[in-house]
């Protein structure tokens, strides 16, 4: 059975929202934190609702609404969301008030909107969608689990389409805490030069990307999702390479059949070593591009990579501005997305032209 990406909606640190094709000029950010370019929400969400919604809810709802509008689908059969951190801002607000006011006279709003299923629930509520609704909250596997759930729902014949997305925000608090863990670069950089300097740490990112997956082709699909797998805490690079080979073998593919690899490089010298090592073995001689210079590092960043892959196979070309140094004339029909998050969560996704 084939699974089609019928439409997309993407709020990211790039001008991806409301653009049918890949934006020509990447947005440059300085520092170590990329913030989303936020759309005018009024076109998608009732003004009264906007006032009550936190930033992540607005981003998620807007991306979902744009995705559904593009597909011309009013209500999807199912909604599956991946978010590692959930609604951090509201969580922080409620925690702060609870500490400062010593558990007295607290207001419920921040608590209500702090639950991890808020974005998925708000989308269902706005659409009056009574269908299947699930939320995965597993760190660097959050989006991949949501995607697997969506793909299984389609294969089980339960539904004809599924709205699936990955949503995570960076807040001042989360950035301050994660900085203390040493996740981000100490010196400010331009995201466009992320890979030109060898240093520890990456740049924080965020985003909300949704996709309408369907079990039947339309005449205007972006791409097909052929396969997805994840693996957890590989013991060493040998096991990682074996997992990649096994994944390709299960699809009866040789590495040479892959036109392009989208890697999850994030500029951190330690983490990026994994990609370098694979490029010397299983990924040898396959053209590649990166994406975290555009969206930053966050647990559901693979959703941005899927959006990018979908757009590339739709046009057949890698857009200028991605630093692609392979054969620019070659039609790109098959893309392998390979991502790892802290060498703990690894995922492989195969996307091909319809």
């Amino acid at each position, binding site marked *: 059975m084939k699974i089609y990406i019928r439409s997309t909606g993407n709020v990211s640190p790039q001008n991806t929202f409301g653009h049918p094709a890949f934006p020509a000029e990447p947005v440059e950010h300085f520092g170590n934190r990329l913030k989303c370019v936020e759309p005018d929400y009024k076109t998608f969400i009732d003004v009264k609702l906007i006032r009550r919604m936190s930033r992540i809810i607005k981003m998620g709802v807007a991306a979902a609404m744009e995705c559904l509008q593009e597909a011309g689908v009013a209500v999807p059969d199912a909604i599956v969301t991946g978010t590692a951190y959930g609604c951090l801002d509201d969580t922080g607000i409620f925690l702060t008030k609870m500490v400062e006011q010593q*558990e007295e006279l607290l207001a419920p709003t921040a*608590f209500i*909107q702090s639950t*991890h299923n808020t974005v998925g629930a708000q989308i269902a*509520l706005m659409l009056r969608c*009574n269908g299947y*609704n*699930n939320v995965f*909250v597993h760190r660097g596997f959050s989006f991949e689990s949501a995607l697997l759930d969506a793909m299984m729902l389609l294969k089980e014949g339960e539904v004809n389409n599924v709205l699936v997305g990955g949503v995570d925000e960076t807040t001042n608090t989360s950035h301050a805490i994660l900085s203390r863990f040493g996740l981000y670069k100490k010196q400010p950089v331009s995201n466009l030069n992320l890979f030109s300097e060898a240093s520890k740490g990456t740049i924080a990112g965020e985003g909300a990307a949704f996709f309408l997956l369907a079990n039947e082709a339309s005449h205007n699909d972006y791409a097909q999702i052929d396969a997805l797998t994840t693996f957890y*805490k590989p013991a060493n690079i040998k096991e990682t390479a074996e997992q990649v080979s096994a994944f390709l073998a299960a699809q009866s593919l040789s590495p040479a059949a892959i036109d392009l690899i989208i890697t999850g490089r994030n500029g951190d010298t330690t983490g990026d070593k994994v990609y370098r090592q694979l490029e010397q073995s299983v990924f040898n001689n396959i053209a590649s591009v990166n994406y975290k210079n555009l969206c930053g590092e966050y647990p559901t960043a693979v959703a941005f990579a899927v959006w990018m892959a979908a757009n590339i196979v739709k046009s057949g070309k890698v857009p200028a501005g991605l630093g692609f140094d392979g054969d620019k004339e070659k039609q790109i029909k098959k893309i392998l997305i390979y991502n790892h998050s802290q060498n703990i969560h690894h995922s492989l996704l195969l996307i091909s032209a319809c």
Partner: protein
Amino acid sequence: MNAPVFIAGVGAISAIGNNVGECLAALEQEQAGMGEMMYLQSVHGKTLPVAEVKLNNEKLAQLLGLPAVISRTAMLSMMAAKEALHNAAIPGLTSLRTGFISANTVGGMDRTEKFFAEFLLDNKKGKLRDVLHHECGYITELVADYLGIRNYVSTISTACSSSANSIFYGARLIRNDILDVVVAGGTDALTKFTLNGFNTLMILDQEFCKPFDENRKGLNLGEGAGYVVLVSERVAATLQHAPACKLAGYCNANDAYHQTASSPDGTGSYLAMKGALERSGLEITDIDYINLHGTGTQNNDIAEGTAIKRLFGPLYPKMSSTKSYTGHTLGASGGLEAVFSALSIRERMIFPNLRLQTPMKDFPFIPETTLIKNVHVNNVLSNSFGFGGNCSSLIFSKT
């Protein structure tokens, strides 16, 4: 896709017992687990009863052979998941594709709360080890690593229906031939965050909760963890003791009415129960027992009861809310109640709904108020409904 998925083992820890045997004994002896706060430190300690697991963190860590610095949520999970795997006793487990699908609602919030008090005064302060396990998924990984499960690990968080969803996601991973064995369920420790959150919603009863009573005043929060070990038919055939039950039906629907309140007609609850019945191929008269979501709030019990009336009326099965024993354990409730449903089938018992004095006047049915023993329990429907309209129902059937 429709191959049966069997329950090979169960594990539980809650306010009524530190393992399945203790929980079963308390269910039979009608001993509820609520009381005055012993371990959670809160200004509401004297006014809001809670259903705490009767072990402090040091004791839990000692039982698990771990340092007492990790989240209570993870430790409760380890206790129950380890028991479930031990109970399943699957031969040659290491050669099978095994997954751990857990659920929780606030991850390592119990530690984050400690961190945050210091962090707010100075953002360079607060021990990082206290916030390291904040993420829901991190709790699951601590447990997966403890159990040595590596083939597939994931976490679901759909508020109070979280672990019902993790159980049937696990079953689908087996049906889709991605895994052979899945330890699935959920965990949640009591935290100040959730206690105060529910308190702002004014749905906490200051006395012991009275689910499905006309004069119910709200829920009591509880804590715990509950897991089932799901196995494929092929694995089930290798077990020394044939599994007592299987997961026969499941369904997830959304109420799409309000972020925290259920619709008056219980649309989501109705759709979840109806969908689970349809998948199981059973008739309403085949259901012997409904383990109710039954939180004890005005809103939940009227919505759930209305949905039951619409689906089952006038042929009502026996029913009860075991939250009258354990309190509402949030992300753990679907897992714990799955274990209780399996026990009901295995032990041929229907557990009573405690403290029910005045039945709800809107309904022609009354939940069971005394223990029923030596009864045929072939099919149990277990309900889990939550914030965000997330409603899920599971059906367990005798094999």
